[in-house]
């Protein structure tokens, strides 16, 4: 299945992308994917991905433009936004 990912603020700089289309094989994720599954797939790339998206990092997620926790379901073709807190003022 394919989902659309969007990265915001410093994630863009660190991951070097504004977003991407992620393909997950049904063999590994089954037919119900959660935000946590998406994160696991991204962290598996290692390096900056594992570091920037590590479990203890303050990150927020939106699925289809609604705030979602890591257990939220992501459906085929849906958009998942990942954004860190912007703290500057």
């Amino acid at each position, binding site marked *: 299945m394919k989902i659309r990912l969007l990265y915001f603020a*410093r994630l863009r700089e660190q991951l070097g992308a504004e977003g991407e289309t992620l393909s997950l094989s049904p063999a590994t994720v089954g037919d119900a994917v959660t935000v946590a599954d998406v994160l696991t797939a991204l962290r598996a790339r290692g390096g900056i991905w594992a570091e920037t998206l590590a479990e*203890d990092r*303050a990150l927020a997620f939106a699925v289809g*433009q609604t*705030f979602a926790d890591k257990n939220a379901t992501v459906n085929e073709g849906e958009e998942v*936004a990942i954004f*860190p807190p912007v703290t*500057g003022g």
Partner: protein
Amino acid sequence: MSALSTGATVTAGAGAKANMDDDLLRRYSRHIMLEEIGEDGQERIRRARVLIVGAGGLASPIALYLAAAGIGEITVCDDDEVDLTNLQRQILYGEGDIGKAKTAAAAAAMRRVNPNVEVRAVGERLGEENAATLIGAADIVADASDNYPTRHLVNRIARKAGKPLVFGAAMAMEGQMTVFDGRRAESPCYHCLFSESDYAEETRCALMGVFAPLVGIVGAMQAAATLRIAATPDAPTLAGRLLLLDARDMRVREVRLNKDAECPVCN
């Protein structure tokens, strides 16, 4: 508009007594003309007390617009001094302010714009010891601070005090903005969005840079939200919607926020 030419005491709608004199009615006439504000709304703006946490890039337009628009009492809290690197975006300050306490220079700038506004300069960092007093004395809190712990502190205390918190943040080319409405139990808070215990990489302007008008845009939106709450306390706000603003292409994405049923701050 006949009110604009009448004497010192003008009877406003709904039996409320307004007490703006002719000069004030003229000064605020362009707001009074608006259906969304009117004389009653301007009178409420004139009686509102706002705390601005921080005196940097976001606070600059917030303070200037709130002073110009006639907020009754504006308190600015920050322990920083004006530095040459601030002047690229912190439009409260000029060359002659370098080295001065930001809050003192901010107060002078606001008084220059509008001497009718009561301005309080608190040259301290907002912390556990002064937050409850400062937030308790305000009707509306604008968070223009620059770090994660302060933002959580402001959120926690404002929520406890039941005050609306007008949140804005900006770094590099992107900003975030919303209202966490402590007056309403159903409104989510900052902690619902980002947990205080999680590690937030603090990216500083000194390292990341910040696009000058970005803080102007986000700060002006905070000023607008603050004035709306002051003028029409019952009108719908941005609460429950987080704006993610990208100054590269001026795209604004809106994320619908939900209250976290397990949030320790707002439940």
